[in-house]
């Protein structure tokens, strides 16, 4: 058997494995996925909102936090991270208007972890809510999330994120992606394998954050690193599928690309930092770390094969065209249109359809109304084009990571 078919079969094996894993987890837990533990205990919560040049969104973010229906919310610490726009002025105004809002400003140190750690030092409550300054927690979010902390050793809880801006085609593609991520994150929750409690909204136990020494300012994705660190220290991470936060997603390709590259660099930094935990430290070493490495490896191999095939095809077509044009024979004949598919083609099509059906199933489960907005074309475009861009971003991330030239902004 040739090398390339073996590689293709390897990809198919991995795809079938993860599809089976998610479907089995869904089958077992489908009736309880949207459940959340009710609690009689009122946890005291402090929200930390780090803000850098967020003059357009920070006011709505703070108002949405104030609007949350949870009685335990004690304080909202808004940390201006040396913004160069009107963010600090807006925060100050809000602090004067609302008693719970405390405004702070500090010099920018080039990492989101710094304002978070700054705010963390001022927290006196048992629970810390970390909320991005362009995200908006749902009214019931804290109430539905805190019950997870009744379970011993839970260090962090997260929820669904919905793009606030989902009018354009590009924003809707991100909405498809966010729904898939939320759904699979919930499924990974059942095997204690949540690998990130993202910035738009995550509740943390203050003790847990103290134990890991706060957020890592060297990491480009402090939320991924904190989650891995919590897993390393034996804390569980939980996902609440019955509530959400809306968040502003990039409207254009360039900021989207930069955001995804940053996520990838953060992932690489985490792999580098925790590489010694391979097949150690519970699910961190047995699933999260291998999963990230597998993603990276498959992406790189896939891209290498893509470039190899593209290059050889271009050279081959160039030579063929050169010969044909000089003699005047037709470049394409009817015979070229009759392709005999290999069994790998059939298997690929079946897997693609299975992936498409899984995506539609996820959109249906998460939000039936949302599915109406996502027509089949969006789903197909997401599966064929959107996901195909990821390995290219990964290459750029690896380049930046190796150069050590990555920066937050």
């Amino acid at each position, binding site marked *: 058997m040739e090398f390339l078919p073996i590689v293709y079969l390897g990809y198919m094996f991995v795809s079938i494995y993860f599809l*089976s894993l998610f479907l089995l987890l869904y089958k077992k837990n489908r009736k309880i996925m949207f459940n959340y533990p009710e609690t009689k205990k009122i946890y005291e919560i402090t929200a930390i909102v780090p803000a850098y040049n967020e003059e357009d969104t920070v006011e709505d973010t703070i108002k949405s936090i104030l609007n949350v229906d949870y009685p335990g919310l004690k304080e909202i610490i808004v940390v201006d991270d040396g913004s160069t726009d009107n963010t600090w002025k807006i925060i100050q105004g809000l602090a004067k208007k609302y008693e719970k809002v405390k405004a702070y400003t500090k010099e920018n140190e080039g990492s989101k972890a710094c304002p978070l750690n700054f705010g963390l030092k001022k927290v006196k409550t048992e629970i810390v809510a970390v909320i991005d300054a362009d995200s908006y927690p749902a009214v019931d979010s804290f109430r539905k999330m805190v019950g997870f902390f009744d379970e011993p050793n839970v260090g962090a809880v997260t929820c669904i994120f919905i793009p606030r801006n989902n009018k354009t085609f590009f924003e809707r593609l991100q909405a498809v992606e966010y729904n898939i991520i939320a759904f699979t994150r919930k499924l990974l929750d059942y095997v204690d394998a949540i690998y990130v409690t993202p910035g738009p909204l995550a509740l943390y136990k203050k003790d847990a954050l103290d134990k890991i020494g706060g957020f890592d300012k060297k990491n480009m994705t402090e939320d991924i690193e904190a989650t891995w660190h919590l897993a390393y220290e034996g804390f569980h991470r939980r996902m609440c599928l019955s509530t959400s936060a809306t968040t502003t997603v990039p409207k254009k390709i360039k900021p989207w690309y930069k955001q995804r590259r940053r996520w990838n660099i953060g992932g690489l930094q985490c792999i580098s930092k925790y590489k010694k935990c391979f097949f150690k430290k519970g699910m961190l070493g047995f699933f999260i770390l291998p999963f990230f490495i597998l993603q990276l490896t498959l992406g790189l191999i896939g891209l290498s094969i893509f470039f190899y095939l593209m290059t050889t095809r271009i050279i081959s077509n160039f030579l063929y065209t050169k010969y044909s044009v000089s003699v005047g024979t037709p470049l394409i004949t009817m015979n070229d249109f009759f392709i005999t598919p290999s069994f790998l083609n059939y298997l690929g099509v079946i897997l693609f359809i299975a992936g498409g059906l899984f995506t539609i199933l996820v959109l249906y489960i998460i939000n039936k109304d949302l599915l109406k907005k996502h027509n089949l074309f969006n789903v197909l475009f997401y599966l064929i084009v959107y996901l195909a861009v990821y390995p290219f971003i990964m290459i750029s991330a690896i380049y930046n990571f190796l150069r050590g030239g990555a920066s937050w902004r």
Partner: protein
Amino acid sequence: MGNQKWVFLKALIVTLIVFDIGIYLGYMLENSRVDEINKWYLEAEMEILDQTIQKDALDLMDLDCRTLEEENIMFGDKIFKEALEIDKIEKASRIVESINFQHKRYDLLRTLFWMNSIRIKEKCKSEFHTVVYLYQYNEPSLEQKSKQRFFSKLLQELKEIYGNKILLIPIAADNDLASINLLTKKFEINELPVILIDEKTKITDVESLEDFEKYLN
């Protein structure tokens, strides 16, 4: 929640089952295609045997040359079309290796057909041209691949123009078959692909269609 970790093993078992079914179905699909080639081969083998007997009979008795020529041309067209089909099937073949074996058998059959055609041409003073296309089968370089693709199209084009005037015989020349090795040595073929016209003219580069056509007129 801890007991749910068995799901990793369950998923592996499901994957192995699905994957094995996929491989098995793929194996069945490719095998059915090989069977189809085998069927064509057996039919072709019978026809070549029939022709060989006809030619031998012609040597012994005074029989009609035209019928033999016509049948020879028809057989040539048939195995050329089959060669195109086999090429497509080979490109789509991923697991079953026996297709290479079938290819070798076909190469021998085509060589036999070539030899038969030479004898018929001599005996009947026929006007058709034998155009033997010798190509690299195993790991051709990128340049060889492109050239072979071009030669293949060019010969198909010529066949459409000249019809029964030419007998097109594609043979893989690097399959380590003694008879083919002997012939390539005899015709001093040192590079592939090459087009051999009437066992005299070797063409490795085609400048224009007219250059090519002059050997056929």
